[in-house]
């Protein structure tokens, strides 16, 4: 059994490339669900899952409302909807207005994920040119979750990771290339228990 039960990722400008780098480092047997908010233009179509699928050994799909979250699947928030996690580990969607000028918003995902997974959650902030996720990382930390932030030096846009580092006591700051391998290692190590 793994200590950790899910990974949530927030990314904005430059995120597609950063996500490709992280996800391509994970094997087919990666044991957790990965749930992603990538900011997109509001009226863009939902091709992100297909684009990322080319880089990943894991199955990638857009999250559906009420869908039961499964291990070893990567879920993407649909464009123009907020993605929320219920405490019974299913997805909800909402069309409420943009949060931090964004829909989907990283904060909305992280805030609800923190309540659903508590200390069993890994939160990750990658490149981005705003500060969405700021409130969310605090909530994850408050519940005892683990935070990995992309090293702003290696980020195409550094304000989002910088803001996250300023907002919460993060566990690890890593260059983009090392994030995938580290995540895998962290999750494998956590089989022994929470003391990591």
């Amino acid at each position, binding site marked *: 059994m793994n200590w950790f039960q899910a990974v949530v990722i927030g990314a904005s400008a430059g995120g597609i490339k950063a996500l490709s780098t992280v996800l391509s480092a994970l094997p087919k047997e990666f044991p957790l669900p990965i749930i992603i908010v990538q900011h997109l233009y509001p009226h863009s179509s939902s091709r992100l899952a297909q684009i990322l699928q080319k880089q990943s050994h894991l199955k990638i799909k857009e999250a*559906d*409302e*009420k869908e039961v979250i499964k291990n070893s699947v990567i879920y993407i928030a*649909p464009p123009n*909807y907020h993605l*929320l*996690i*219920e*405490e019974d580990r299913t997805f*909800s*969607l*909402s*069309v*409420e*207005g943009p949060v931090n000028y964004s829909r989907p918003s990283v904060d*909305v995902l992280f*805030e*609800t994920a923190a*309540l*659903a997974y*508590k200390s069993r959650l890994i939160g990750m902030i990658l490149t981005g040119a705003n500060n969405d996720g700021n409130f969310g990382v605090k909530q994850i930390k408050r*519940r005892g979750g683990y935070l990995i932030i992309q090293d702003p030096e290696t980020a195409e846009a550094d304000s989002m990771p910088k803001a996250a580092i300023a907002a919460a006591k993060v566990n690890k700051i890593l260059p983009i290339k090392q994030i995938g391998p580290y995540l895998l290692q962290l999750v494998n190590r956590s089989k022994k228990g929470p003391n990591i």
Partner: protein
Amino acid sequence: MDDIDNQNLELQLMLEAIHLKYGYDFRNYAKASVKRRIQHRMTKEKMANFSEMQHKLLYDVSFFERLLLDLSINVTEMFRDPTFYMALRKFVIPELRKHPFIKIWHAGCSTGEEVYSMAILLKEEGLYDQTQIYATDMNEVALKKAKDGIFDIGKLKQYTKNYQKSGGQSAFSDYYSAHYEHVVVDKSLKKNILFSDHNLATDGVFGEMNLILCRNVLIYFNRDLQNRVVGLFYDSLCPDGILCLGSKESLSFSKYTNAFDDVVKEEKIYRRLDSELI
């Protein structure tokens, strides 16, 4: 019991209290969104916990009204999802044409943008005069705005674009008059629309509809309430009547999945089947 469990308990009690005192039933809404909205209201009001809020809710009606607005998410657009309206024109309008008199129900119409979009479409298809539209919502503030038909001018550009992409046949500006900060929808669009208060969680059927639209409302409900509401729609539709849901909603996991047939699957347009088949 940790603080999350306590908070869930307080939330449950509060939703119970709202139901008993005001009749609004949020007990079967999807929890994460309700909780998040209430939590943000609590922070804004500088309250310590849900119980403190519950007290205020019970004694201060105006506070409840504010919370009600938080909980009923009214975000909407004209011609939201243009491809949906395109599909309506192509596949639903021909069905409606078969009837000498048409009844349409918009359930959860919010501030009316969806209803006026339908009115425009019907006008362009030459069906408006033989149609009666019933537009309902539980939120009376939103309904009032809908009746007024006044929209923020800042959204006009997006709406115009949506309208064009949806297969609009005229200039969008034919349907409103622009003022300084707002636009007013044309009076002729209003004449066959009846706005009224209706709560999908607690109220009953609306009879003999040819078409029901309920878009971006079911996502806020849990499975039980979704089933109740789809049942309500089934009973409100005439034989072969059509039901349209939001682009991220579907009947696939509903108790009623076999009671409807796909008309346009990708656009979540369904047809009611005969009851013997269920």
